């Protein structure tokens, strides 16, 4: 579904991504991992067409978003749901207005119909609509904000693929668990592919079928969990080293479950 071929990207003179290539198939769950500042989030911005790579192509359903006009990009973006880091909810709008933002802006639906859909979506992401629909984002906890952001992305578009940028950063364990559950629910119930960017191994292991490790702007690894554990690449080993002891049990559990 998404085919990234040889992309390079730089911010000014700083080369962030070097010759990156990988594919994401339909109904696949991919996690992009790597240390902070390795260019993970930039890949999501490139997929969404918010940035243009200096080299390479990004094909989404066989259409190269890098050469598209803004008007055509908008059509293609309807197939992609994006959940930004920290949610990126509009802080001057209520939770209800945030969730129904796309419907308010792009459709002629009646207010009652938009409210019905917003309540339904808030219910789907595990929130009590009656309690929060009129609240401002700043009145919600971090975990609730992420879930509203996921709801907004789902209601805004008809996504074939969801992009999550650090969905659990800054959340407590319970909120992290809730958000991860929700992402898994999307994947299993709605068969929506997802690409999650994270530097937290626990999240990655719980979410993904496939892992891509970005190290200093290059793809250091692309494969499944067993291959990840057994990788002899020094860059992958360096990245995984701090987590291996604490995450050993989770890795084994996941592998056993897979078997």
């Amino acid at each position: 579904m998404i085919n990234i071929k040889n992309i390079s990207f730089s911010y000014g003179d700083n080369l962030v991504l070097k010759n990156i290539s990988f594919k994401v198939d339909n109904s696949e769950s991919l996690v992009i991992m790597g240390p902070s500042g390795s260019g993970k989030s930039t890949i999501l911005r490139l997929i969404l067409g918010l940035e243009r790579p200096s080299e390479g192509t990004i094909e989404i359903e066989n259409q190269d978003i890098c050469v598209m006009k803004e008007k055509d990009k908008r059509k293609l973006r309807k197939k992609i749901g994006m959940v930004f880091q920290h949610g990126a909810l509009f802080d001057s709008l209520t939770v209800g207005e945030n969730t129904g933002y796309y419907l308010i802006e792009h459709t002629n639906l009646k207010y009652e119909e938009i409210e019905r859909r917003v309540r339904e979506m808030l219910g789907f992401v595990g929130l009590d609509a009656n309690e929060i629909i009129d609240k401002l984002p700043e009145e919600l906890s971090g975990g609730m904000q992420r879930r509203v952001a996921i709801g907004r992305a789902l209601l805004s578009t008809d996504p074939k693929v969801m992009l999550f940028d650090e969905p659990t950063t800054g959340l407590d364990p319970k909120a992290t668990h809730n958000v991860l559950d929700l992402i898994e629910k999307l994947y299993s119930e709605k068969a929506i592919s997802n690409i999650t960017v994270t530097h937290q191994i626990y999240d990655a292991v719980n979410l993904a079928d496939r892992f891509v490790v970005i190290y200093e702007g290059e793809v250091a690894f692309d494969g499944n969990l067993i291959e990840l554990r057994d990788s002899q690449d020094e860059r992958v080993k360096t990245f995984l080293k701090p987590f291996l002891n604490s995450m050993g049990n989770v890795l084994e559990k996941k592998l056993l479950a897979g078997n």
Partner: protein
Amino acid sequence: MKYIFQFLSILLYKVFLTSCEVRPKMDCKERTLLIFKAINRGLKHFAYSCQEMFFFSVRMCFAFFSRRIYVAETMEQMYLIGIGSLFLIVLTGIFAGQGFAFAFSMELIDFGAKNYLGRIMSISIIRELGPVLTGLMMAARVASGITAEIGAMKASNQIDAMVAFGIDPLKKLAVPRMIALIVMVPALTILCDIIALIGGWVVSIFITHVTSTMYWSPAFEKMVFGNLFIGIVKPIAFSFVIAFVACYKGFTSEGGTKGVGKATTESVVLSSILILLVNFIITKFVFGLIKGYL
């Protein structure tokens, strides 16, 4: 000499945001070359920024004339910019008018020409003081607000979220603010003119002891097409300046909250300088065009 060059190099580094290495054993020629390089880089940076801002302004104008206008956002901005600035403009007008009238009347009394106070007040306030003061006040209050708001939205990815949901941020955020400024800055300028003239009248009655008739008759006499035209063209031009600069600085702010703070300061400074520059240009060139109507 060495220290002068070092000082100049550091100054140029600060001014032009460019690196100039000063090594201990550099001869005079090398140092001079270094300074010219710094100036060269600085000028290129300046030219690039001007070009970026010009293209941004062009994009804003295209967005202004494109089909969808966000009426609710525009009305909200009109309220925030217009009604929100009323108190500030009234205070500015009354104190500036009184101060101006007082300073003029002291000189006019010496020449026995205090009856000309209304005439001078009318010309100076409608042509210059009202538009410039209102423009500067709006630059301080509104430009900072617009830059900070858009910059904060950018820092928290809200603008990217808008793009992701198929909304053009220029149409949604910049155009309503520009329309609101184009409507409200001239309106506030007219208000400032009226209040400043009233302030002058108070001084003329109680300090200069000029009668109301002697103040208002020549003042109204000078409210001719030419003066009023200049007095309304200037705030319209200033509103474009504030909108372009404030939105540009907001949309291009980088570096999180610190970057937003820096962009806000730059927005106020740049829009204030440009207002003064545009004021001079309009006074110089439009004056020549409508001289017969003054």
